[in-house]
């Protein structure tokens, strides 16, 4: 018996080892190196020696005006796109779960934006919102007004990226919520109906509490996704004018690969990871409290 379990253990280790090794080499080690990098003067000018400079990179980040601009941009982007796509996704899911015919076609239609490439969708949005783009063409034909410079100011430029983000996210939310809605026991609805609940009350008191776990999951995933927005910003405004529409990731990329300040970017990435971690904890807590 004992030998058998030992064999099992050896077998287990042997099977786990490749996976653990890959994880250690390609995930844990790079994160550890990145942490070291964030405490060192790691830039193009000092490739051959990276002196330890303590928290100077973190200080640089916090005393940088542009960091606060891009940080606020990322927060606004997340605060707008996450609730928008969750609400729309849930709405579509509820509507779809109620229909019998054409449900597959509607699902496909709503899911299409998700499988569209970010780059292509971003380029299309750019063409729509260009100063000489489709939207301005229609507007000026209808109203005779002058072209609006949608992409050239901070908030209007960001708004275009936010519309794209919400549009692209609805499908994913729909699929996640559809799956959750199918798990809600039908007898709960029947009981609620017998108690005289209308459809709105049933949604509020039965559906929502039953899919709370899924809502939390979606919320955390989308918050991380919101902070990770990169392609659309890079393609639509490129951070213009003067980094006013940059977000955390595009700014991090710019600092590392265009100015060579890898230490700064490493520090920024840890600040961002910390923020995301704290937010996830807060979101968990908030959901738990509502349970009690």
């Amino acid at each position, binding site marked *: 018996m004992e030998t058998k379990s030992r064999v099992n253990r050896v077998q287990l280790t042997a099977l786990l080892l490749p996976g653990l090794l890959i994880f250690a080499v390609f995930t844990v080690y790079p994160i550890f190196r990145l942490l070291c990098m964030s405490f060192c003067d790691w830039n*193009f*000018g*000092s*490739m*051959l020696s990276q002196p330890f400079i303590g928290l100077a990179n973190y200080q640089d980040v916090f005393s940088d005006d542009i960091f606060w601009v891009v940080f606020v941009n990322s927060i606004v982007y997340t605060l707008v796109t996450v609730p928008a796509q969750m609400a729309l996704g849930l709405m579509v899911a509820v509507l779809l779960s109620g229909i019998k015919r054409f449900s597959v076609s509607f699902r496909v239609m709503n899911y299409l934006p998700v499988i569209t490439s970010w780059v292509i969708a971003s380029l299309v949005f*750019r063409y729509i*919102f*260009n*100063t*000489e*783009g489709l939207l301005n063409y229609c507007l000026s034909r209808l109203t005779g007004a002058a*072209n609006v*410079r*949608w*992409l*050239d100011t901070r908030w209007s*430029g960001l708004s275009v990226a936010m519309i794209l983000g919400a549009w692209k996210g609805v499908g994913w939310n729909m699929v996640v919520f559809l799956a959750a809605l199918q798990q809600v026991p039908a007898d709960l609805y029947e009981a609620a109906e017998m108690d005289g609940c209308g459809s709105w009350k049933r949604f509020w008191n039965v559906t929502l509490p039953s899919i709370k776990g899924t809502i939390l999951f979606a919320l955390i995933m989308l918050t991380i996704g919101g902070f990770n927005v990169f392609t659309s910003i890079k393609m*639509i*405004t*490129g951070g*213009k*004018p*003067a*980094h006013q*529409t940059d977000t955390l990731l595009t700014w991090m990329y710019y600092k590392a*690969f*265009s*100015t*060579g300040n890898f230490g700064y970017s490493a520090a920024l990435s840890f600040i961002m990871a910390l923020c995301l971690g704290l937010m996830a904890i807060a979101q968990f807590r908030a959901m738990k409290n509502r349970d009690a």
Partner: protein
Amino acid sequence: MKKMLSILLALCLMTGVSLAESAQPVTITFWHHYSAQSAENETLMNVLIPQFESENPGIKVNAVSHEWAELHDKVLVSASSQSLPDVARCDIAWLPEFEKMGILVALDEAMGNFADVSATLLDSAMSTAKIGDHYYGLALNTNSKIMFYQTAMLEAAGVAVPQTMDEWVEAVRKLSGTNTNGQQVWGWNEPALSGWNICPFIWSFGGSLTDEAQTVATGYINSAATVKAIETFAQLYKDGALTGFNSGDIPMTDGFGTGRYAMMLEGPWKTAELEGAYPDTAYGTAPIPAGEGGSVSVLGGEDIAMFTTANQDAAWKFMEFMTGEYAETEMAKCGQIPVNKAALESDVVKGAAYAPFIEAIQSAKARPTVAAWSEMDNELNMALTAVVNGEKTAQESMDALAVTFDELLKK
């Protein structure tokens, strides 16, 4: 079976060893960013390197092609792993950065005949390789920007090709407005607000970015002449006469080709681009209009540099060859503007499509050759954006920029 394998392995090792031993000639590695499919690469591989190897028996050249941006990063990574090539073709903007890393050879110290070799090359181009008191490369090829104008638009507006900055301002204003389709048109297009774009104006207006020694910016970047250049630029933008640097604007080539932009400042590559995309658009070229500082364009191009880990004698021979009259003339046939004075006199160059650019190069200036240039360029871009958007006056913005530049120059 195991025996077989071990014998095989031993055999492999032995052949490897004997191969290494029989490799008598010195092999130097040359990294460049002529694209793999280009005419330049053809010439390099099939004409220049065979010629060099026959002139220098005992030296073999292993040329490796990289993408432009990839080459820059590859050098940085290789520097930390001590696996640099012997020689590389570098964008002139990279040299200060590489020099600061301590991976470039100061050629004027290391090479006895440096002065003779550098005398055969254009001074303005060689200035891109000078960092501090030493030269860290040889100029290899060059480019610059000149003014492109839409012939039909100028004729329709009754505007002559501007020769001076005053005429330029007036022309840009006159050419702006709406066309017969009711679409907005602009007299001038400038696709960005970085040093590459704004320096020609600052210099031609008589301004500058730093002192000659490139150690201080206060009194230069915020001098009256520099501020006037930027004010003029910003005012033209506010008047709707100049555009191109916003994310929502029409791309440069399309705007020029379709008659929405009347004039622009561009490099030799634009000729081929316009030929391909808008072959029917008639245009002319002229030097950048002259101001208080003359007609001064901005210098682009590449240098050839040697790394500290190189086989110096062989590497230097190759660098001399690549910047010599023969190689420069051959490369000129593929559209590379030579910097070798003798090659510049050849019929190949005089008859080339880029001939108008050569005049501009003689008087063009290089952007500051300092390691912090990319950071300075970013600060300049932000300062200019604040001015054109009306958040700050040109004087305020340049005063603040001068302080930032001074700090960056000290680094």
